[in-house]
């Protein structure tokens, strides 16, 4: 160690004995120039499309998809190469991105996405990263080639004009609306929102008192028995239940909900007259008087339908409940704000009532990349924060007070 230090000190401090100063300066200059050029060449070489495609996962999966798009071949002959879109163009971010690629090299060696199946499974994770990145930088890479200030909106297709003018006015990130322009979109159906993991772990830590009320964190199957073998239906996200007892990994809960007295009556709602789905039972079960007790019947003056208040005691797996729905709403609110604000300002939750939201939502959800579970949560959030609930605490009975007149 000491010798190494001495060696380094000598290297820098001991004047050269034989080589002239000029030679040193010229030599140093040449070495510097060569090194700089070499560095740039290396940076450029690793920014070539050919370099990206040396990894077979990229060549086999992404290239054929890109080749079908306008960014591969078009009227004007301008090509977008992989790095044009994926590598930041500024020095610091570019270097950071290249170092980040060390992880991708590792993935290649380990074979994380070595096959088409693995790739498809993992694709959503990768896509999310790119979306997050492009959202954060306002799609800077896209805008290196096409920016709002250089667009002639009048010459766009009529279908584009309104949306694009509005986007330019708000200086929105392109990726908000133009996902999947270069590759196939990942399969979002059945995809699972990582935000729910926090709910699951919160529910695992939730202490449960018998006799108290709790909220289901996610849709969960319901059973008739404590062994959880005879399914009777599913409870929907954020549905309120009363816990009666805990037995091992199962909990007996009481559902007290409303249904329309029509057909099987298998869809149960949280409030009288409001289509906020809280549970869906099997059709053989929903009229089973051993399980379901009818407490009260009332006619909805708006539809003329009879609604029944019903009660059932069922079992569900433990660790599915939280004592407050607020955490669920936080996730829903951020998904809503993010997904529904790309084309228009997200409408105020209380601008519509609980029965209007499902139709409106169904017409819009196709425009977004919300997965099924998240979409359900968002809809539930909108309904429970709708005009019917304005001014009432969540969960309070909205049929008391102003609600009925608040409907159109």
């Amino acid at each position, binding site marked *: 160690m000491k010798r190494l230090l*001495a060696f380094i000190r000598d290297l820098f401090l001991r004047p050269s004995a*034989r*080589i002239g100063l000029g030679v040193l300066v010229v030599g140093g200059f040449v070495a510097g120039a060569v090194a700089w050029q070499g560095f740039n060449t290396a940076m450029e070489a690793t920014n070539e499309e050919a370099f990206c495609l040396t990894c077979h996962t990229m060549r086999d999966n992404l290239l054929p998809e890109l080749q079908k798009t306008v960014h591969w071949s078009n009227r004007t002959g301008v090509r977008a190469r992989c790095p044009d879109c994926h590598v930041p163009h500024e020095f610091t971010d570019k270097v950071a991105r290249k*170092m980040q690629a060390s992880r991708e090299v590792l993935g290649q060696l380990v074979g994380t996405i070595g096959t088409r199946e693995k790739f498809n499974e993992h694709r959503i994770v990768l896509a999310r990263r790119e979306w*997050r990145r492009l959202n*954060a930088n306002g799609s800077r890479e896209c805008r290196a080639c096409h920016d709002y200030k250089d667009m002639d909106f009048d010459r766009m297709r009529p279908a584009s004009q309104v949306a694009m003018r509005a986007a330019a006015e708000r200086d929105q990130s392109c990726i908000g609306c133009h996902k999947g322009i270069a590759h196939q979109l990942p399969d979002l159906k059945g995809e699972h929102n990582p935000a729910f993991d926090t709910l699951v772990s919160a529910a695992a830590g939730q202490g449960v008192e018998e006799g108290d009320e709790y909220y289901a964190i996610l849709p969960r199957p319901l059973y008739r028995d404590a062994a959880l073998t005879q399914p009777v239906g599913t409870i929907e996200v954020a549905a309120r239940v009363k816990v009666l007892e805990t037995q091992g990994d199962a909990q007996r809960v009481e559902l007290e909900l409303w249904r329309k007295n029509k057909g099987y009556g298998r869809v149960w709602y949280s409030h009288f007259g409001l289509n906020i789905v809280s549970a869906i039972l099997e059709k053989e079960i929903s009229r089973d008087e051993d399980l379901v007790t009818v407490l009260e019947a009332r006619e909805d003056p708006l539809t003329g339908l009879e609604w029944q208040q019903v009660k059932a005691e069922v079992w569900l797996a433990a660790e599915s409940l939280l004592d407050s729905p607020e955490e669920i709403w936080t996730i829903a609110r951020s998904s809503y704000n993010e997904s529904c604000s790309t084309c228009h300002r997200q409408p105020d939750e209380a601008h519509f009532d609980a029965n209007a939201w499902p139709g409106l939502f169904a017409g819009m959800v196709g425009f977004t990349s919300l997965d099924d579970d998240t979409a359900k949560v968002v809809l539930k959030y909108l309904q429970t924060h709708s005009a019917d609930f304005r001014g009432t605490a969540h969960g309070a009975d909205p049929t008391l007070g102003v609600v009925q007149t608040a409907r159109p």
Partner: protein
Amino acid sequence: MRKSAAGLPAGAADDAAPSLRRELATFLILAFVVLPALLFGAVAAYGFVVWFLQILYLGPPT
């Protein structure tokens, strides 16, 4: 620093001024191997630091 009679800096056993060959070799290795390696290392380290900062505090670049 110990000085030899001639005023040249003295190091270990091979005290006397190194030969031209040796000095040239040192110079060339420093200039064309060590320097580029350091340059690369410094840039890589910078990149990693920025990346880690992005993970921890900064979030994706804006």
